[in-house]
């Protein structure tokens, strides 16, 4: 996965901040999701116990991942599914393309799958002469627009209904309307024809149950049920971390993922598919293929802090509460997975040096950790990754090609902190520095703050301060430090006075 765009993160972020329309749309949408989520969760007395239990289930599974994966594969095969293993994105794409080509599949319907975005499946299929059609409304909208999803559970969250209306009118040649029910109906009728004609259906997997070899896929629209029951062949793409031990574990998982992902008590449809149909005359596909892929997941098992990354349910709850995501939206992250979870998954999947800016795209407020249904401690993970980057772990060796976090910058930061430590640990040096700063700052203080300087004063400000004041004000050094005030007070009340 090397989807990161060519501009550095701060450039993209700045551009996103300048896009008032997108910020407005995103803000409105996120406020709405959050309100629903809070309402649903507030009505669940056992929410915290559910989170705790889910985290236990995930921890247990990940610590014996090889056992559970093998059990899942065995049971699924016994029920007639064909299991494929792929070490990376390229292998996964090639397996799926081969299956499609062997069955001479021309038209493929796809349901929403972050995994398929991660491995860039659509591009691979198109290159292989197979046309993949997205069927989830949000995904179809962005496919028509030639864009990528900006949110894990609401892919077209950044689009207003006016924009969708324009898009449909332009791409489908229909009369322009921005009535949402009408737009939905247009999508339904157009996509229905595709379902009827499809040779092959491709889906993701939310959970794989080891006990029975079952895959569970959840949705609200119904396109997954159509994708997995109408075409003759069904291919399910499943990250190896999706496996859970028992069917009964779904009770906990389903009760967490619906409120977290969509602010609902329960998503509309769950399809539990075990192998293939027993008799030829039964409903459903003739073949079910499950492609298990790694693509960088197994290396996250090597440390308890990073291992929790694999507990992620891809619900998107962390995005909705993240102050950074809310302002800049998903595309600014430049990676398939945006927001808090994206900031920790992407560097681990593609290498710290290629995504070193992401763990820093956070204020460490911790809102994400509070809402995560499986209690992933994202701030802990961010700090862990930041430490790895700062210490120059093997992953982050060498300068980043795009110059985002070059060694010289790290050198400058290290120098600055060393200087700071020197000054702070020597009283005389500290007091002297304060006096010097007070003298030098005179020209830079306006209205009681050190602000971004105008042209005339710009030359007086050191580069570090320029960077700081570009977005923040700096409090100036006081006319009298506390120590100086204290000394003066003591002098005044000398003779008999006691200090408290």
């Amino acid at each position: 996965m090397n989807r990161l765009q060519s501009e550095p993160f701060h450039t993209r972020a700045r551009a996103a901040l300048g896009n008032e329309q997108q910020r407005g749309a995103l803000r409105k949408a996120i406020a709405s999701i959050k309100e629903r989520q809070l309402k649903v969760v507030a009505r669940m007395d056992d929410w915290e116990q559910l989170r705790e239990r889910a985290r236990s289930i995930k921890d247990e599974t990940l610590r014996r991942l090889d056992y559970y994966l093998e059990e899942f594969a065995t049971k699924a095969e016994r029920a007639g599914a064909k299991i494929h293993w792929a070490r990376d994105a390229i292998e996964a794409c090639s397996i799926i393309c081969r299956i499609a080509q062997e069955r001479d599949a021309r038209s493929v319907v796809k349901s929403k799958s972050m995994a398929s975005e991660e491995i860039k499946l659509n591009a691979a299929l198109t290159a292989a002469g197979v046309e993949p059609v997205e069927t989830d409304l949000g995904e179809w909208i962005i496919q028509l627009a030639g864009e990528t999803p900006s949110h894990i559970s609401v892919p077209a969250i950044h689009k207003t209904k006016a924009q969708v209306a324009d898009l449909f009118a332009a791409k489908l040649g229909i009369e322009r309307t921005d009535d949402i029910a009408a737009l939905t109906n247009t999508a339904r009728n157009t996509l229905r024809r595709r379902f009827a004609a499809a040779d092959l259906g491709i889906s993701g997997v939310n959970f794989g149950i080891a006990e029975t070899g079952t895959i569970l896929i959840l949705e609200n629209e119904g396109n997954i049920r159509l994708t997995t029951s109408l075409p003759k062949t069904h291919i399910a793409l499943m990250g190896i971390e999706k496996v859970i031990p028992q069917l009964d574990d779904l009770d906990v998982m389903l009760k967490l993922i619906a409120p977290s992902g969509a602010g609902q008590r329960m998503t509309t449809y769950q399809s539990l598919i075990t192998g293939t149909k027993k008799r030829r005359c039964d409903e459903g596909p003739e073949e079910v293929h499950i492609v298990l892929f790694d693509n960088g997941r197994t290396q996250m098992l090597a440390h308890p802090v990073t291992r929790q990354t694999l507990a992620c349910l891809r619900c998107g709850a962390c995005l909705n509460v993240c102050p950074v995501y809310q302002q800049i939206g998903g595309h600014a992250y430049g990676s398939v997975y945006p927001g808090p979870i994206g900031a920790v998954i992407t560097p681990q999947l593609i290498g710290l040096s290629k995504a070193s800016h992401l763990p820093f795209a956070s204020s460490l407020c911790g809102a994400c950790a509070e809402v995560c249904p499986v209690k992933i401690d994202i701030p802990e993970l961010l700090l862990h990754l930041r430490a790895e980057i700062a210490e120059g772990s093997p992953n982050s060796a060498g300068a980043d090609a795009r110059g985002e976090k070059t060694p010289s910058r790290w050198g400058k930061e290290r120098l600055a902190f060393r200087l700071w430590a020197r000054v702070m640990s020597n009283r005389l040096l500290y007091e002297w520095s304060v006096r010097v700063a007070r003298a030098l700052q005179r020209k830079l203080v306006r209205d009681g703050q050190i602000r971004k300087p105008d042209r005339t004063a710009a030359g007086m400000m050191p580069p570090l301060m320029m960077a700081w004041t570009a977005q923040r004000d700096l409090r100036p050094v006081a006319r009298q430090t506390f120590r100086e005030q204290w000394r003066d007070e003591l002098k005044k009340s000398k003779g008999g006075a006691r200090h408290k």
Partner: protein
Amino acid sequence: MSTQSSGEARRAILASIRRNLKASQPHDARRDGNAFQLSRATPQGLQSLPSGSTDPGVTTDSASRVAEFRRRLESVGASCSVFQHEHEAASELERLIQEAGARRIAVSDAPLLKTIISHVNTGTKLLSEEAVLAGELFECEIGITSAQWGIAETGTLVLESERERHRLTSLIPPVHIAVIAAQRIVGTMSEALARVRGQGRDDLSRAVTFITGPSRTADIELTLALGMHGPRALHVLVISDDSNNMLSSAGEIKEW
């Protein structure tokens, strides 16, 4: 060729898992020994995991289960009516058919439906499932099925593919009418999963579908729209009489 490389990939992935888990052991040992666990779960075998949550609000009384089931369904935009007798349900079916102005209706092969349908008077063409191909289903305005289980705490219908042929009939037509016996409504998701899992190795149907309300989307400006790909209307008819002899004299369900 492909099996060979898949075998290679399988070995490589499993080996990578084992290798990385092994590398994690010293870090895990340090954390597990730490007195301050915070919210970290200690590693335990499956057996010692705490039992699943049960919603204290759901009782084991049949009438209150039905009431809860109905309340939940209505809150997600489905309609739910309870009938004492099959012929009452038949009247409701007639009403729904007329309301939808339906010309073609698909009916699944559920035994529960056979008697009810026989009471229904309508000029509409009823297609039984054997005769219906997927293509024809696209022309039907209503699909009528039964459900094997209902879950009170979530307002969910559970459809098992081995018990009835209803996978597409419950999905393709824009209106779905589901008939369910009151005794089939269990209290919790956990109970339903246990029923579906069954006792034997092969009891689990190849396709089990959970349905909680009509199809919906909020992908455009987070505004709710019903009937995206699945049915835009779901009507559930609960039958609480025993004229189809679902219960034995001891009050146990005779057949799963």
